[in-house]
């Protein structure tokens, strides 16, 4: 399918989702769908660096929180509408992604992962000491109950998140089929060989880090309006990172479809478990699924489907497995 057709199809699916939300009288389902779509954006964004390039990024919360807090701060300062705040948050996080990439992407494997984890700690410390956004005390972001055209404000937030999800998926798919995407795949398979073949390794990795950070930041921009109260402890919850890593790994990291499948599957499962059984099981289920998939289906659900069609699974297509294998080799 050509990119043009895919974009048209993605827009159609997005429009259908928004259309359906307008007819849903039970707002809970819109809340639940917003939660799942937010993870579609985060998982897809993570996969651009983690899946396509093979760099496992544990800094999702940092990017999400930068998007969240920049939107909250700009809303407090200038009272800007969310459609303006989203691209600003995206630009800011893209710049942070680029800077983080420039400083850390020379590192490989677990060293890169630890550096991204440190980014979350640095950003959280900064936010905790930034009094304008409430510091450790938190900040209230008031929103109206209703809004023209959409009626419910939650339906409006759902619309915005649908647009972001469509944009993230389309971008991931376009990258995957482009020369840029082939370059990223070459880096993932063997960085030294890619460099020797003339692939501009550092430049491509920086662009991937910036694009990934941009979408994570944009996913965070509507969050203060969804929550109405933001504070550092929950804004930097490890759950965002764990989920955004687990979802592509469960769905499959080598294609745009993997993170979407993983986000819909795990996101829906978590929402269901929150209200059906003790939700302390939530992250346990994510962890157990992650272990099962890394061991039994390293290429995720997509890999399983392909292996059913006779294709051989490649364990090193899983960034976590690849990282561990690389570490083992380097220590030998």
């Amino acid at each position: 399918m050509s990119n043009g057709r895919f974009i048209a199809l993605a827009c159609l699916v997005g429009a259908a989702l928004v259309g359906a939300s307008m007819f849903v009288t039970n707002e809970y389902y819109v809340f639940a769908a917003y939660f799942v779509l937010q993870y579609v954006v985060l998982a897809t964004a993570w996969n651009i660096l983690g899946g396509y390039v093979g760099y496992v990024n544990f800094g999702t919360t940092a990017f999400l929180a930068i998007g969240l807090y920049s939107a909250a701060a700009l809303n407090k300062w200038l009272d800007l509408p969310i459609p303006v705040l989203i691209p600003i948050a995206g630009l800011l996080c893209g710049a942070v992604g680029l800077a983080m990439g420039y400083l850390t992407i020379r590192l490989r494997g677990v060293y890169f992962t630890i550096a991204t984890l440190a980014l979350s700690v640095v950003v959280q410390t900064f936010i905790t000491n930034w009094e304008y956004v409430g510091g450790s005390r938190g900040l209230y972001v008031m929103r109206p109950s209703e809004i023209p055209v959409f009626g419910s404000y939650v339906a409006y937030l759902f619309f915005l998140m649908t647009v972001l999800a469509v944009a993230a998926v389309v971008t991931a798919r376009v990258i995957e089929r482009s020369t840029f995407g082939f370059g990223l795949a070459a880096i993932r398979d063997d960085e030294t060989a890619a460099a020797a073949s003339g692939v501009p390794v550092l430049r491509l990795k920086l662009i991937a880090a910036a694009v990934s950070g941009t979408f994570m930041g944009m996913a965070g921009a509507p969050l203060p309006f969804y929550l109405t109260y933001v504070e550092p402890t929950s804004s930097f919850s490890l759950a965002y990172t764990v989920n955004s890593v687990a979802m592509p790994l469960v769905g499959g990291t080598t294609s745009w479809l993997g993170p979407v499948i993983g986000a819909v599957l795990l996101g829906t499962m978590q929402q269901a478990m929150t209200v059906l059984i003790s939700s302390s099981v939530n992250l346990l289920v994510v962890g157990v699924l992650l272990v099962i998939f890394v061991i039994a289906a390293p290429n995720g659900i997509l890999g399983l489907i392909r292996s059913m069609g006779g294709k051989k699974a490649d364990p090193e297509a899983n960034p976590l497995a690849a990282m561990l294998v690389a570490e083992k080799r380097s220590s030998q």
Partner: protein
Amino acid sequence: MRMFRLNGLRGVTLALSTMVAALYATNDAARAADPIKIGFGMQLTGPLAGNGKAALLGAQIWAEEVNKAGGLLGRQVELVAYDDQSNPGLVPGIYSKLLDVDKVDLLLSNNTNQTAPAMPTIIQHKRLIMGMFALAINEQFKYPGYFQIQPYGPNGKDSLTRGFFENAIAMNPKPTTVALVGADAEFSKNALEGARMQAKRLGLTVVYDKVYPPTTVNFTPVLKALQATSPDLVFVASYPSDTVGIIRTAHEINLEPKVFGGAMVGTQYAAIKQQLGEALNGIVSFEQYIPEPTVKFPGIEEMLKKYQAKAADVGVDALGYYVPAFVYSALQVLGEAVTKTGGVDQQKLISYIHENTFQTVVGDIKFGPDGEWVEPRMFAVQFRNIKGNDVQQFTQPGKEVIIFPPKYKSGDLVYPFTNAQKNAQN
């Protein structure tokens, strides 16, 4: 005798009408027999689970008692509780589920200011919300259907700190300096703001005013720096794990101000009382209920007996003074409002709660326009005569002497801090 004869069409119409009426009547009867659902999200896992589980047990005890007595308006009470994992991100969805899917009749909140994410949904549905252990949320929302059960009163920062400073300033000789220290987090920063206001009001010189990161585990550098300023008073605003660390460190470095304590979260919990034991002697902190002779609320002792009998099995706070008794009283308020208004009409309930005073197990409660207690009633207490680490001693009077407010006072402040400790050992 005249017989009614109906033609075909009229007969069918009448039969249908009768059936529809019967159906409606059946539905009404069924609805009347339906339970009254009380819904809430609660922190049953995650960092706030200790209080969340205790709160749930308090609510369950109330529901059990009400159902044994025949329910509310002849309808049984059903609690619909979901675990929000101490994660505010899950709160909007949970409250939407409670309202749109479970169709609950009444709403309680979870604990702390993590209630806030539920507020837009609640306001949109024009529902009554009985909040628990949240500080000044309604300053933001200004929603008339919001009520809060913790006895902060209209000015929480003041009520948390007034008792400490009123007693300290009455000492002879009068203190002149104060050191303020607390965690860099929401509750403690509010308490420190209150302490600064009190210090300014009373003309005390603030010689030390710092916050520490919430992850701090070694308090020696913090308290050594504070000790170097030789303050008359040390006011601490801390969270449970910090409270333990600060009290232990204060003993290790022989910190000896005239008064030591403040708004120390954790001194209310049975596990920390037990853990610190004699190290608590002389410390001034806050409580909401304590079994002192001056505090006699009808029904509290029976309620706590039931709670304490179950607490060990559930694995929650062994005493139940801080959270469960107040959750129970919040449900007493809702129960009375439902009974007196004859239903669950939200506007009638909101008006009734605003207009009346409620007799509960934690005393009489009258809510103000902002949904907070009209009269604040935070007790300032001083730990005394603690021997060993037996938690049962805290069920006896004289272990936490109420020094403020005057209406409930059960003793005077013993000072300086070293004297309070020595007295306890005698």
